[in-house]
């Protein structure tokens, strides 16, 4: 999931994504990011995130996003 980390780091280089577990609650990722994030995941990882998976708990931490992407890749 290096690519995901790359995408996130490009958006917020000052955040340590390995430890942050409340990205949404702390407003690190906000409405300005979400469209870019979804588009980049689609472009660079090849995973389309369906609207029903767009919920806070799937984006609150790096590992939650990894789990979501893995799940969608296996479907």
């Amino acid at each position: 999931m290096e690519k995901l980390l790359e995408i996130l780091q490009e958006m917020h280089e000052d955040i340590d994504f390995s430890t942050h577990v409340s990205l949404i609650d702390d407003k690190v990722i906000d409405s300005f990011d979400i469209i870019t994030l979804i588009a980049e995941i689609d472009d660079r990882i090849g995973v389309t995130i369906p609207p029903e998976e767009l919920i806070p708990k799937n984006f609150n931490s790096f590992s939650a996003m990894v789990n979501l992407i893995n799940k969608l890749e296996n479907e």
Partner: protein
Amino acid sequence: MINVLDYLENTIKTMSNPDKPAFIGEKSSLSFNELYMRSLSCGSYIASKELQKQPIVVFMQKTPAIIAAFLGVVYSGNYYVPIDSEITTLRIRMILEEVKSPLIICDEVTSKLLDKWSSERDLDWDYDYSTVLFSDAGSFLIDYNKLTAIRKSTIDVDPLYVVFTSGSTGTPKGVIATHRSVIDYIENLSEVLALDSDTVFGNQSPLYLDACLKEVFPTLKFGATTYLIPPSLFMFPVKLIEYINEHKINTICWVASALSMVAGLGAFSVATPKSLKTIAFGSEIFPVRHFNLWRDVLPDTRFIHLYGPTEATGMSCFYEVSNSYDYSGSIPIGSAFPNTEIILLDDNNNLPPDGKPGEICIRGAGLSLGYFGDNEKTNSAFVQNPLSIFPDIIYRTGDMGYYGSIDLEQGDSNDVQRVLFYKGRRDHQIKHMGYRIELAEIELMAASFDGVGLACAVFDNENSRIILYYMSDSVDKSDVKAFLKANLPRYMLPQTIIHCDNMPKTAGGKIDRVKLLELGSRK
């Protein structure tokens, strides 16, 4: 009607249930009665400080209480200046130093921020001010006599609020609206949107911008209800739709990018906001592709395109979108609100023929008083109507428009509408996620960072992102980014920052923005 408080008072007098909720937030709500009593209390507190016709800063979180604070300021015969921590310390400081508000109304959270900033000497004030918690001001003993006397001395062209928008000189500029301009706007907007007491608004816009007038004052006028939608829902479209349906929200006035987000992320395959009867959108261009997705799922809903600058108080033009016409290019901004006139002026101050562009100029009672503390700027934008021999002020928006026609072909007879279309800016102002931004403000901020030479910001409309180019021998991209993050509001931060050795120049020697945009779009 000469005072916006008449809206609230008339409603309280005539409504059968004053305990009906007026504003509902995430964790709290205010009924009309509570709103009224708290506004009176807050007004009495401010009046007890013997302040009159002064700017009073309201620095609170987005909760229903902030509306009572606004109205409290109005009851006290002063005008409110809303600020929000979202706009960063530096800008808050610029605004406070500009308006020199003698009193700041805050809440538990924002008062801690103010304390923290002043202890960190982030804000070294050169004027005296006091602060009060809204929880104290809003429960102060009501002094009806004093408030009545103040009311009698207020006229409708007195200032009501000052809101700050991006300024091309690097400092935010404050636009002063009056009771008259707001009443004129609210009356016209209510007619256009057909609002009434059954209206349930879902508010999206921040409360420190004039965009929130659309919900705040009609709610008071009609005894309607406004839900302040939690901002985080604007990232999660299905949750947002569920929220709308759960609360039976029937009217929304959102920036187009919020509507785009819902459609673009595919939410309609899972849920439909079926309670929506009226959708007003504006503040930026709504891609027709996204609009069509909305119209497909809500064929019976009214869609109304609104257009207008802060300087003319809220919105000045509207266009009700047909539910069948194919708007392949762009959705028009239509025609002027009632009691408002739009004049297009070409470079020679003449009316251009249809199809040819001119600057959109606005006249009417909706015009604001201009810019706070900047008569020069006011006088250059609020000018004598060149087509009139009488004293007659128009506001030159800097927006370009042209008249075109739309042939709706309803039935046998051709129904051709002559409508106004928006055609871009004269200058480098942009709209990003509904926020109005002067690219120069971003450039000046970047260039103020030690070691940065030239900086130039361009807007990539296609991908909705701000790209900043900068020249420097020593400064790393991440340093520029961190500096901007600390000093510019979130919505002004460039999505892409590019270091360059040289700026491309036009033949005339100016920075070639078109070239920069081409370069940036390829990255």
